[in-house]
């Protein structure tokens, strides 16, 4: 169980005030020094509103979390471009309010819900999770959210609901990357119902104590810490319950490279690169490469979900 006491003291996590103030301080210092070479766009962006949450010490890791700038400046979010910096530059065009989520399929409660209504009364907690991308880099992120199972239970899935399918917003006006056909839009991801109901599976609305930056999947995203990052779908507008396994975006794009399960597995390589190790973003010089752990280090919690399955076949 994840009962390990976090080895990082709470004081070691740099409080967000410092991040946001740092920008102001820096901007002030630079302005007084008349350093005109800094691009104007880099100066103080209004910080996202703070959230009310409680830190959940049960879900933490021994590694230090990444800096806010790393988590918000290095993203795969093809809806805003295919390189890592594009989402941070262009995701401001996404309008996250008002936002609604449509629930459909094998559930008693269906319909379209305002995000505020879905979040009303929902206690938020902070969990520090490892995040492992299929491209063999990784982060440690202090997410703010709540268990997906809390949300799904409210829709009363029927016994036919074997899978949950999630869909990202489709609006090329707000998401210019959708104008090129790099993926089959809209982005779709899915989980088996037992994976979706697992206590580790998180619905995320924030990061470092504040509302999610758009490039990290605002206003509502999934985090499944034992799976490759592409499973953790962003900017969700639709949740569907179904009897059949959903056709997920990367699996449709390249089925031989990206499986439906996509559990982090150092023993099963991507056809074009090794998954045995990963590089931790922001780690010190020459100390970034580390061994990848089965199920991204969450094997004790989730390995039993896949008992008897050939994980090479169901990669």
């Amino acid at each position: 169980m994840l009962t390990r006491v976090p080895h990082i003291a709470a004081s070691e996590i740099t409080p967000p005030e410092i991040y946001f103030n740092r920008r102001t301080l820096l901007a002030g210092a630079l302005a007084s020094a008349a350093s005109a070479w800094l691009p104007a766009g880099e100066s103080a962006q209004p910080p996202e509103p703070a959230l009310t949450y409680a830190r959940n010490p049960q879900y933490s890791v021994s590694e230090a979390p990444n800096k806010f700038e790393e988590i918000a400046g290095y993203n795969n979010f093809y809806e805003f471009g295919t390189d890592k910096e594009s989402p941070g530059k262009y995701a401001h065009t996404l309008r996250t309010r008002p936002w609604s989520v449509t629930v459909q399929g094998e559930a008693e409660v269906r319909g379209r819900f305002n995000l505020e209504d879905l979040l009303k009364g929902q206690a938020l907690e902070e969990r520090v999770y490892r995040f492992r991308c299929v491209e063999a880099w990784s982060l440690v992120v202090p997410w703010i959210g709540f268990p997906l199972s809390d949300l799904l239970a409210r829709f009363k899935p029927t016994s036919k609901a074997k899978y949950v399918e999630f869909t990202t917003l489709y609006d090329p006006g707000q998401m210019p990357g959708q104008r090129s056909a790099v993926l089959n839009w809209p982005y779709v991801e899915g989980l088996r119902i037992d994976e979706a109901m697992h206590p580790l599976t998180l619905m995320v609305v924030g990061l470092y104590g504040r509302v999610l930056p758009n490039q990290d999947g605002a206003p509502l995203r999934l985090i499944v810490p034992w799976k490759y990052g592409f499973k953790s779908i962003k900017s969700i507008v639709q949740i569907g319950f179904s009897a059949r396994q959903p056709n997920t975006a990367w699996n449709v794009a390249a089925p031989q490279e990206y499986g439906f399960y996509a559990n982090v597995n150092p023993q099963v390589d991507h056809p074009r690169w090794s998954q045995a190790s990963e590089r931790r973003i922001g780690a010190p010089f020459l100390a970034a490469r580390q061994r990848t752990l089965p199920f991204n280090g969450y094997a004790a919690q989730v390995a039993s979900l896949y008992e008897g399955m050939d994980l090479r076949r169901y990669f």
Partner: protein
Amino acid sequence: MNITQRYRYLYKPLVLVAGLAPLAWMICGALQLFGASLGADPVKKLEHECGKTALNFLLLTLSVTPVRNLTGLPQLLRLRRMLGLFAFFYVVVHFTVYLVLDLELNLALLGADIVKRPYITVGFTALLLLVPLALTSTNGMMRRLGRHWQSLHRLIYVIAALAVWHFYWQVKRDVREPLLYMGMLALLFAYRLVRWRTRSAARGARVTAAPAAVTSRSGSATAPERT
């Protein structure tokens, strides 16, 4: 002394400085000087920038002949060696960044990558093939190898194709950029193919028109053709 000879002392240093500019930019990025930055994953950024710079120099090297023919500026040929050596230089830096900063000198990982990852196999082959070209790029080696020098240096076509293939294969999904490189390389190859065909057609026509010329030209028929 004509005008091009006089400016030789100017344009070679200019190309040298221009060729070092990408390296200077990367160093500024690594040290965060002048507002340059390598982003959240500097290792990958360096790796990709070096690789792309090497590819740019490969294509520039292959552009020298067509541009020279189209502009009628034979002196451009003098730049080709430097451009080719810059390609080699950036490939070596690219590989060094990969081995030292990315793999952190884990040689077992390097071996596994070269054997198991097709795009790394392809890229590594291109690197190895560039070594003899760089070593034989001196005037002395050109003289010593004679006409074999030209045959050896035709390897550049294979290397360029491997390099573009290496780029194409490592991209996860968005292949637009590698396709652009592939297109540019195809153009450079097409130019040579067309030229070679029109030349051999012209030669064939001459041969039929004047059979007596065959013997007198036989010596030069196998002589290295400028590429």
